[in-house]
């Protein structure tokens, strides 16, 4: 026969101060973990949610990001004009939906005066906009005029980086560019400055571009694209291009990889270290619960309860402590949801702005963590309670 749950609940209420202190202790631990997980969720979802499978990114072979890549104009031209895998606007003879882009992390002052950071500056062609389609929206001002010294800025930059409001001037080496528009889109591009590729390359005195981005033809997606990408690096036909291709989704996921992994390690190390401390605390609380109820346990045993139900009862009490602690921790972590922050993504060496996201997965991980803390903290005390000899236990006051 099992011990009624109400017995467990009442026991928690009787020892109010110990219960509260343990719950908040576990809560603080869980809140910290949930905070780190929410940071990671915000960062990775920015990259993973926006990449498309029907867009290809061409960069130099061996380059780990477009910043490291360099592709000559001639090569870019050949890729754009000759590859049949690239979609064309208005039938087979139309203009290819592909753009040569240059990319550079430029030094910019932060708007709050706290120093400088690196902002991605991208030189684009009209096709860059055509590929993005409706996903990229101008929310203030207008689009940049091709061939002019104008730029548009991603909306995340407006408040973070100095000189990124409408009509401000962005100085690139010796050339001033005027901000004519602010754009919004999903993904990390919202932290970028876009200008005309020819003007950018001239202003930066850079002879080579960084990447070609292209809309894939309908018959070159999925497996067909994978086969094409393999050919590109292995077949003799493409050898002199020296480029490789990835879908935008894969490319962006790779950009999120290093920091995402680092944050995962940080949360793992924190949960182990902080978890240990929390388990010790829970064990203490439960040991004292067992000690103060030794007499009761003796009574329970002598009226016929088996050791197993007693073990389960105390384990349940510990789990309940963990669960309530986890819930408190989640509540404490909730307010960080949506808080905007920025950090340097060392995969691209540029700052990217993103928001904490307390997702259901984050909360579920936090609750699971809290339950594990309760379980591990309650195991030994519950075992001790179940092993008590009835006569011994009854003799205690």
């Amino acid at each position, binding site marked *: 026969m099992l011990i009624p749950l109400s017995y467990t609940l009442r026991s928690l209420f009787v020892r109010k101060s110990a219960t509260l*202190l343990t719950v908040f202790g*576990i809560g603080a631990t869980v809140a910290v973990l949930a905070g780190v997980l929410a940071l990671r969720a915000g960062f990775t979802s920015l990259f993973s949610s926006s990449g498309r499978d029907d867009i290809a990114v061409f960069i130099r072979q061996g380059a*780990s990001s477009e910043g490291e890549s360099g592709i000559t104009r001639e090569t870019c031209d050949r890729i754009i004009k000759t590859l049949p895998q690239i979609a064309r606007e208005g039938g087979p003879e139309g203009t290819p939906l592909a753009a040569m882009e240059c990319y550079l992390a430029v030094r910019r002052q932060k708007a709050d005066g706290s120093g400088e950071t*690196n902002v991605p500056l991208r030189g684009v062609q009209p096709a860059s906009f055509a590929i993005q389609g409706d996903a990229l929206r101008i929310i203030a001002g207008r689009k940049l005029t091709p061939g002019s010294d104008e730029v548009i800025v991603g909306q995340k930059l407006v408040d973070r980086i100095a000189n990124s409001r409408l009509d401000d001037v962005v100085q690139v080496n010796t050339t001033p560019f005027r901000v004519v528009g602010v754009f919004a889109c999903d993904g990390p591009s919202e932290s970028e400055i876009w200008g005309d590729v020819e003007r950018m390359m001239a202003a*930066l005195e850079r002879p080579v571009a960084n990447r070609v981005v292209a809309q894939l033809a309908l018959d070159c997606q999925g497996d067909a694209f994978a086969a094409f990408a393999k050919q590109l690096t292995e077949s003799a036909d493409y050898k002199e291009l020296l480029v490789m291709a990835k879908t935008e989704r894969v490319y962006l996921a790779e950009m999120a990889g290093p920091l995402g992994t680092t944050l995962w390690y940080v949360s793992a190390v924190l949960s182990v270290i902080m978890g240990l401390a929390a388990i010790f605390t829970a064990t203490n609380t439960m040991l004292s619960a067992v000690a103060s109820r030794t007499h009761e346990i003796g009574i329970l045993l002598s009226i016929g309860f088996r050791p197993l139900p007693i073990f389960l009862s105390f384990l349940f009490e510990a789990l309940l402590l963990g669960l309530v602690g986890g819930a408190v921790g989640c509540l404490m972590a909730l307010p960080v949801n949506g808080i905007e922050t920025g950090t340097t993504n060392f995969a691209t060496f540029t700052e990217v702005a993103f928001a904490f996201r307390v997702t259901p997965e984050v909360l579920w991980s936090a609750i699971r963590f809290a339950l594990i803390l309760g379980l591990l903290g309650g195991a030994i005390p519950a075992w001790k309670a179940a092993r008590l000899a009835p006569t011994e236990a009854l003799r205690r006051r």
Partner: protein
Amino acid sequence: MFNFKLVRRYLGKHLVRSLLTVASLMVALFLLCLLQAIVVSLDAGVRGAKRDRLIVQSAVSLFVDLPLNYQQKIGAVDGVESICKWQYFGGHFQDDEKGYFAQFATDFDTLFACYPEIEVVEGSKEALLADRTACIVGKSLADRLGWKLGDSIPLEATFFAKPDGSAWDFKLAATYRPTSTAMDGGMMFFRWDYLEETVKATRGETPGTGTYVFRTRAGADQAPIAATVEALFENGPQRVSCSTEAAFQAQFVSMYGNLPFFVSAIGGGVLVAIVLACINTMLMAFREQLHDAGILKAVGFTDGSVATLMLAQSLVLCGIGGFAGIGLAKLTEPVMQLMLTRFGVPYEVPAETVALASALTISIGLVAGVVPAWRARQLRVVEALRSVE
């Protein structure tokens, strides 16, 4: 009538609970030291920067190179002494996870003139000048990757990739150890002429350099020198910014954004959890010792000494746990250093962190002990004696 034996007996009576409390404090203080040390380490480069060194870099981007003829023009500015170039190579060693380190092309004679804190420990400066592919690496890096003098080090290039995609070969000719903790002891330097000639031969272009570093003449006023250098290239071809080494390092720290704040927030969470745990333990102890406290008072212990007994238990418990944690953080310093080198962060638990952690330890002991001590003091003998454990 303070009796330390009583403190010991009480803590020993509930040995398991005492040990668990000590263990959780140890873990928490270890973590606090670790987090604080990381925050402090982030700007070690700023604090340790040499005052007589100025750095010239592109005003546009970290990834834009400066023309080679800038060196002679900057060198001619009044007050500038021994100028050297640093070009980031950005190569990857085979196993990138374990093997990341920064490599720079430079001229060795000027590098050593600008950086007296680079101390050659194996090999010699002569060996570096004898072989075009010679390189010098940090002793700690060589130990980590198991390199010996004379070893060949192949690197896969990124910015300086050869058209055929083949690796660059370097020969380990010397190792160094920085005499200042602010300098990264895990970098690699190789000869500028090797870089220049190889890039010319394979790509037909002359490479530029990322930064110029120069020392100023002793006693020279640096601000006008920096302004003169910046003015030299105001109209291109590449505009430059010239800053002190501290300001140069600070720009990398500022890249971390809110990171230091987040780390401190985590530390705050740890602290809250551990304070609650210690209060919990001491309240348990108080409840158990209620009866005893009555007896002590009945036999003549003063209110103060009974309170002191409670407080002393808290302080001893927290002291043991806290200082064990601080000791652990100090002990694991070499391991952590090894783990963090790949991020280029010098790690050490500095004296101020130890001091802060010690102060926290004692504060936790006081906070956890003060309520039970106060209640023990207020205790009325009859009530205490009536209570059962």
